[in-house]
């Protein structure tokens, strides 16, 4: 009975994590579509999306089980948490060095 309850808890945890992942990826998409300039878009791209991917991969790890392939998804999660902000930083810095001035309130929406 406890084993069944444990499995049910795991199933619903996977569902919850997946939904959270979808939600944050959705926020990331809305941000990238709505925000006015590259720098603010990089915010959601690096943060909301990292969290969305993190939740999604955590759900996968929980589904597969940590013993076997699940470890790879933990590795993947860790890797995405390190590389995503680095990539966003590199892109923002490239824009900065090109001389793109960050959008401020009062500027025209682009």
């Amino acid at each position, binding site marked *: 009975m406890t084993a069944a309850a444990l499995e049910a808890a795991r199933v619903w945890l996977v569902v919850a994590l997946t939904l959270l992942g979808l939600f944050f990826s959705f*926020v990331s998409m809305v941000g990238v579509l*709505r925000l006015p300039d590259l720098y603010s878009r990089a915010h959601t791209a*690096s943060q909301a999306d990292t969290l969305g991917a993190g939740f999604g991969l955590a759900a996968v790890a929980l589904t597969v089980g940590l013993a076997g392939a699940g470890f790879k998804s933990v590795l993947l999660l860790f890797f995405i948490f390190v590389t995503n*902000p680095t990539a966003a930083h590199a892109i*923002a810095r490239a824009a900065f060095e090109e001389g793109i001035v*960050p959008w401020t309130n009062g*500027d025209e929406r682009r």
Partner: protein
Amino acid sequence: MADADPPPGDGASADGPVDSAETSGPSAEASDADATSGPTTSGPTTSGPTTSGPTATAGAIIVPVEPTSTLRSTIAHVAEAAANDGAPALHLVEIASWRDGDPESDERAAAAERVLERVAAWATADLDDSEAPAAADVEVVTAVIGADDYLFGADDYVRVLAEYAEENAADRVVLDPEYTPVGNTTLLQPLEFALSNTSLSVETAPVDRPTRRERFRTEATTGRFVALFGLSLAFYLLLGDPTYWFDAVTGVATAAVVSITLSRVSLDSTPAIPRTPMRIARGLVYVPVLLYEILKANLVVARVILDPRLPIEPTLNRMRVIVGSGLPLMTLANSITLTPGTLTVRARDSDLYVHSLVPWAREGLFDGSLERWTRFVYYGRRSARLPTPRERDDVAILQGDDATEELPIAAADGGAVGAGDESDGGDETDAAESIDDEVTDR
């Protein structure tokens, strides 16, 4: 060619304080003129040593030369400055770190000559390209100085430089930001300080310093080799099957290849027994804290983004952080980027340029809890208790109504780089849009 352009932000710095050409001798023993060998000419269109120099408004400029990564842009800046100010001559000097007669001194002198020849060619080309009318009057002179003497420190270098300056009626020294005559020691700051005690005017060329290459390639040590070998073997076995003999053999081979080729590149400090495990342990404490911060702030930012009115107020900010360079700085910059509402755009020395989406994110950043945690992870609990960046007054807002500093961006058309008030907004948009067009056309 982008190379031939003067570095951004020049011209403004070209009109520094210019002292009169007749300089008093810097010190009593410095009048020993023998310590300086005469200027030697080299390069395609250089002319002889300046004997008098047309006494223009400005004196000649001296640039100490060493083969550095920023040398090219420094020369471009100096050539432009010399042309604009009507300097009679541009002296490119190499201060000898050897003494004539030493073993290998001939080779080193020859190497110095080669460097000087190349630099003189650059300077001549830059002067030819220059728009300024006085550019044609600038003489390019190269010299190796100080080879008769052993030079021990910043003071000796300054003495030699001051003598050379007096002989050639120069009153201005422009330093390459990466200039380190002796090789490994960082001598620029003591050199700048000692030069400021003479009558010469000193400036450091405002050029972009590229990433230091030295940090990427450090000496190989057993500790690094072992650490990298262990890490890559563990990674390999995690992906494979640790109990299967074939994976173990190929894992050892792969880890050996990785650690032989990359152990000089991938770790920037040798792992030490008490320090590295402590850092890892404290890092493990930091992870849940960071995750909680990310989650909490992400929810708030999600609300801002999904709000139909989109109440954002983005600004660029500058914050000077005290965490050291290398890995700690990377950890802090990545943590800032991961925390919603803040994005590290640039890290220049210990200045972080952070873009913030909403004011509360900026305030949270200036409170410095992430900086404090980074210090805790890398240096322990005691160093975590430094004042916050706000208390240290190490913060600045670069845009918007509350701006306290100018935006350090190379505006495309040299127009307003204004932070300041709303009226600057139009200019900024125009500049940004012209760049956009350029980029999309490419």
